């Protein structure tokens, strides 16, 4: 899970994953690993989620944490256009680093849709599988995991 600082990556998964590690791991070593089991067809897929510390002006995404990933979740805050730009930038860097990998774009904070800054046209322009989620309401999160697992299984 990658995205700009403060887009709600950790909040997004907090209620939906199994975790044994404290969230302080994120601020100390920059990553926290969670687990999410989803069922795709008749198969159970275990997703090991590397929740990476958000990138901002000071902290750069650790590329070493992306090594070996099977897929990724780009998270942006619908209320912050810059977070979407960052997601686009990160997608490009990851693609350069790891080649084409399955991924989904998550636009978080759908419960505040009336305040969204990210334009629908900009999203459609990318042509990525996109999910609108609300960490607060819990909507769209399971669908997003299910879709990613499906793409990984393809």
């Amino acid at each position, binding site marked *: 899970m990658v995205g700009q600082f403060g887009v709600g990556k950790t909040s997004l998964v907090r209620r939906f994953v199994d975790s*044994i590690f404290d969230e302080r791991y994120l601020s100390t070593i920059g990553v926290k*690993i969670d687990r999410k089991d989803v069922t795709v067809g008749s198969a159970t897929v275990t997703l090991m989620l590397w929740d990476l510390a958000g990138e901002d002006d000071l902290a750069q995404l650790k590329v070493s944490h992306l090594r070996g990933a099977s897929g990724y979740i780009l998270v942006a805050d619908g209320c912050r256009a810059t977070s979407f730009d960052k997601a686009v930038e990160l997608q490009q860097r990851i693609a350069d680093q790891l080649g084409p990998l399955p991924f989904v774009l998550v636009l978080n904070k759908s419960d505040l849709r009336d305040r969204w800054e990210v334009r629908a046209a900009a999203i459609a322009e990318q042509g990525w599988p996109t999910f609108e989620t609300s960490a607060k309401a819990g909507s769209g999160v399971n669908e997003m995991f299910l879709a990613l697992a499906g793409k990984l299984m393809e």
Partner: protein
Amino acid sequence: MPTDADQRPSSPEEPLAELRAILLGPDRAAWESMRQRLDNPSRRAEDVAGVLAEAVRLRSRVHSDVKLRRALQPLLEEALQLSVQSNPRMLADALFPIFGKAIRKAITSELDGMLQSLSQTLEQSFSWRSLRWRWESFSTRKPYAEIVVLRSLLYRVEQVFLIHRNTGLLLQHVAAPAPEGAAETKDPEMVSGMLTAIQDFVRDSVSGADSNLETVRMGDIEVVLAYGPDAILAGFVRGVAPRKLSRVFQDVLDSIERKKAEALHTFSGDTSPFDSCRPQLQACLLGQGKLEKPKSGSWGARALLFGLPSLLLLALLGWWIYSASMQRRWTDFAHRLEGEPGILLTHTENRGSKFYIAGLRDPLAADPVSLLPASLPRDKVEFHWEDYHSLVPRFVAQRRLTELQDQLQKRAFRFATGSAAIPPEQRFLLEDVGSQIISLIQAATALGQTVQIEVRGNHDPVGTEQFNAVLSRSRAENVRAALVTLGVPAARLIALPEDLDKETCSAVREEERMFCRSASFRVTGRVIGAQ
């Protein structure tokens, strides 16, 4: 003007050849060129060289196809062998960055192990436990250091994780049966990922790109990590992990890397190819616990093994304490004898079960046997004394007193038949005897003694018994009175008739009877040894 064709000799094949040239001319040239390329080995090699690299790259993308690798393997091995034979330095230079680092690491690890072992050996060197280990080393003929390592490092490998290095995903996980009170095994998949993340974090942040995190310690738990090209082996160890454990882990991981190289290269989430690695991982669940408690059935053997020597030891200890105590008493006794006047010790020693004392002893000195304390039995001491005269003043005075006493008791006054009067020729003896008695009294007084002198009258067989009894008393009283007259204290002189217990004088001749008519002296009332 005639053409060339006109000049060529006509032949039935010519039209066919011309036709062939018209129809196939350009292709024939190409075929000819192709034939020459195929027939010419050098040109063919040039062609292959142009596409070889790309062909190998394309083939290597097909992971499941191992034919190319198998075909190249013997060639590469032979090429390496030839390279080493012809110019070993080139390969050595190429491998040095890898081997040099590995060798340094191995030496460091070995030194750490030695230091750890040495440190613990020193700590244990002078303990009862170390004595037990030395006995075990002696009885099993194993080096002492090996016994120390085997018995002193208490640890237990509780969990082993085989982790795919590239993805951080868990390939296999084994755990030892959890003892009562042990920590619960948490989600191994997440632990595996987090270990990889921490490894990345440390490498990126602290150690530099080429280093690996080898151990992590938290409380009494230590995580021991071994690294291969495609996998990581991590063991959670409770207690003090011996340095050799890292080597065990590394050997197991190397073996897995060799056997599962293909599966590791092509790993995409399916861990089933690594199920067969579980026995190897379980072999890493090592531990060195406390020594097992003896079985209940071995009490007899234990009693024989430990009880008998203990009893012997106790008996020896008791005997030693008793001997030391007796020796001390004998020594104290010898010191007491040395302080006794008139005794000089020349030699003391233990002779078997007896204590031997030799020396010089004045006959007037105290009897050593009487000085023996009740705690020292008489039959356990053997004395050997040589007589001598001590110059201790008390003994000198004592001897003088005895001498005076002997001299006095040899004196006697003679009397005429039937007479109690001191004959005139005997009177000259009075002063001499008187002075002797006074000297005797003075010598006794100096020694704190009181003496009395009996003056005994004696008679010959002539006359009646009654007459002779009166006569003998009169003779004694006359001598006493004469001596008192000369200054001898009257209280010290007692006049007595003849002692009835004394043998009666039976002399027949006058010369013999003369000796029976006398007054003699006997010293009594002395307190021998009084101060």
